[in-house]
């Protein structure tokens, strides 16, 4: 007990000094983590990406500060407040401190309100999601008249168990999604069976596709390259194979692709799940039950399954 009292009395200047050093160190490390956090994310390939990454870096910085603040204090306690062996005496009987408790209620409150407000503003900047319109089962997918301005589209994104098909305004069908760079493209997201999710990590965008509804969606790619499109909503047996590529090209190459593809005959498109299912049947159909994969999509551009991707 005596040593403890001495320690408290000693405090004064040196204690404040240690706290200031610790806080400065913590701020430095937090800023560094925020800076590093950009490298944990894929290439920024859409207009949304840098808003999302900035928000993430901001949260990483604040999160690191809080994490190191709390765990640093815990480490300090573990080093300096350990009871010696066989010492079972009590610590300082502090029951609480109203001022401190009010501070640690108000400060986090303001902090989360601040982060939420910031995110809300980012939401309004992005505005990827258009309308969601229900239609009757078996009926034609309704055409949605988008009031918003976009540069290209609408491209129908058709998701299935387990392949993707993209239908362009001029009627061409493709297994890969070709998009012009720096142009706002518009999509109609459609599923023919269960819920899927249109997820392109390099774009930082994800949108579920709901049976019985058509969802309009728009985005602007900002970088040329090949990016993975992954189904992100579990959709059954071959869910992990339900991927394809997004190919972002310059406007010139994109229109050239459109022009050339329109002349191509319809052929079987990418369907890795179908191939795996055939293999399973050949091997005696072992495993647990699954619905049959949808047949190969009939497309003008069959795509390349093993195309190397940038992200």
């Amino acid at each position, binding site marked *: 007990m005596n040593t403890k009292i001495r320690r408290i009395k000693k405090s004064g200047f040196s204690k404040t000094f240690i706290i200031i050093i610790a806080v400065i160190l913590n701020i430095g490390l937090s800023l560094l983590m925020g800076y590093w956090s950009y490298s*944990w*994310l894929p290439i920024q390939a859409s207009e949304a990406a840098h808003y*999302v990454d900035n928000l993430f870096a901001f*949260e990483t910085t604040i*999160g690191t500060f*809080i*994490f190191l603040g*709390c*765990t640093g*204090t815990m480490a300090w*306690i*573990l080093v300096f*407040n*350990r009871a010696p062996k066989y010492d079972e*005496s*009590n*610590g*300082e009987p*502090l*029951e*609480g401190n109203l001022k401190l*408790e009010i501070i*640690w*209620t108000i400060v986090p409150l303001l902090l*989360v*309100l601040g*982060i*939420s407000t910031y*995110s*809300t503003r*980012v939401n309004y900047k992005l505005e990827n*999601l258009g309308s969601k319109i229900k239609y*009757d*089962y078996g009926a034609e997918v309704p055409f949605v008249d988008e009031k918003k301005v976009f540069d290209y589209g609408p491209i129908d994104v058709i998701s299935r168990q387990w392949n993707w098909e993209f239908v362009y305004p001029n009627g061409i069908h493709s297994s890969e999604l070709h998009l012009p760079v720096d142009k706002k493209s518009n999509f109609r997201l459609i599923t023919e069976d*269960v*819920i899927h*999710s249109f*997820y392109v*990590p*390099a774009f930082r965008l*994800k*949108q579920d596709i709901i*049976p*019985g*509804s058509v969802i309009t969606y728009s985005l602007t790619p900002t970088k040329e390259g090949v990016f*993975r499109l*992954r189904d*992100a*909503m*579990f959709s059954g*047996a071959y869910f*992990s*194979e339900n991927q394809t590529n997004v190919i972002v090209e310059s406007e010139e190459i994109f229109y050239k692709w459109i022009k050339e593809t329109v002349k191509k005959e319809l052929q079987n498109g990418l369907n890795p799940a179908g191939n795996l299912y055939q293999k399973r049947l050949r091997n005696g159909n072992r*495993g*647990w*039950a*699954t*619905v049959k994969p949808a047949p190969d999509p009939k497309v003008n551009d069959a795509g390349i399954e093993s195309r190397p*991707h940038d*992200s």
Partner: protein
Amino acid sequence: MTIVNYDPRLVKSKNPYPKGPNDWKRFFSFNTDAKVIGIQYIVTALFFLLIGGLLAMLIRGELITPPSDLFDPTVYNGLYTMHGTIMLFLFLFPILSGLTNLLVPPMIGAPDMAFPKLNALAFWLVPVFSIILLLSFFVPGGPASSGWWSYPPISIQNPLGQIINGEMLWIIAISLSGISSIIGAVNFVTTIIRMRAPGMGFFKMPIFIWTVLAAQLLQLLGLPALTGGAIMLFFDLTFGTSFFRIEGGGDPVLFQHFFWFYSHPAVYVMVLPVFGIFSELFPVYSRKPLFGYKFVAVASFGITILSLVVWVHHMFYTGTPMWMRNLFMFTTMLIAVPTGVKVFAWIATLWGGNIRLTTPMLFCLGGLFNFIFGGITGVMLATVPVDIHVGNTYFVVAHFHYIIFNTIAFGIFAAIYHWFPKFTGRMFYEGLGKVHFALTFIGATLNWLPLHWAGLLGMPRRVASYDPEFAIWNVLASIGAFILGVASIPFILNMVSSWVRGKSAPPNPWKAIGLEWLLPSPPPHENFEEDIPTVLNEPYCYGLDKPFVEDEQFYIEKSLKKH
């Protein structure tokens, strides 16, 4: 302060197991003693932790390499679905019910639960639905394989078209689990409200009791939505109704609302008692009063109320309109405030204490450390733009395992060690306990920390195969998972050998303040029997020279007498 009295006939009820209270067969009977039921729950749940953990290692075995090469993907889907279901409904909920059963009556000075027969019924439903769930491994087509969310339409596709299928058994098991939990909740809430010792007003209750009350009220408010949703899903699957089928005009998104209205609060149902455990143990092992007791107590109800209005954050990208996403982002963020109050209070409790690093304390400190991390990634997930990128990826998997294992299971282990001497009358081996902690902490960190990066890079959850760029994170995670498997060995060794031949435990080995520590170890069937103590002060008055109960010395002496 209100003094709660209960029917004195309860105290005089006969011992429910006629062959003497210490016959081991009592654990296999329809026993109505809360302490027996508590141990029944805990042992059953730990058995299922092993099964769920085995499934986890199979999952990590598949994911250690990018291609799907260990199992057919359909088998993988069934394994991860059953892993999640077993861990939640057969391990976490039952083990927390077990701890609640053991601790609530002694902590409030009650002889037993308010409805002992209902209590036994709630427990015996566990083996019933567990067997139903495990049987689903053997029906044609395999077990449920649509994830523990069981979202339609995937969950009602029923590829083989048979009436009895894995999904159907899954829904029946989940509904029975819900019924068991509702029965348990009615019992816990009634017991806490009606059967506290004289003098124990609400603001003299231990925090564990506060958190149990908050959590069990949440069960009563939320579970009907899930159970109702599950019954509708059952009808859609089995009888072809169209609650969620678009063919008949139903809407699959409706199920997601029913599901998450309960299943998000469910996380708080699990984590609140663990917050209670932290609040009990930190004062004991730092020899200080809980910092800001009243604040910490009330914060539990702040969490309960807020958790009922956050469920849409699981649906930010289902086509939810902008205003709704923003609204639910704000409500979700607000939960950080009462949770922060608790975290800061625990750290302030440790500050300037006399820290004893026993096994339970190590698990508490490890749990708190992980919880701070998991809480921060939780705030990240609550912000809509970040969630739209990392939602449904391994970032979420890593986040919720940081909460559900690295926090909740750590707290549960802490509680098991802390109260083991009280309820078995034996001391455990400290060395084995520390080995268990070290392996668990290293394994858990290695398992889930790397997966955050896999998720940030865009690896979807629930995949059986993945692109090679995610391999490094998955190899680390798999090694971590296998270490966690090894960690169960010292734990099992410790528990079994200590219970069989451990040193006999004194009534209060940790010098803790609390009604349960005034009882002999193990406590007699009716706890305080005819001498119910009168509570005088707040709990946790370490170093304050304020006696917790009237005539404390009488109870200490009584507890030392062998019964």
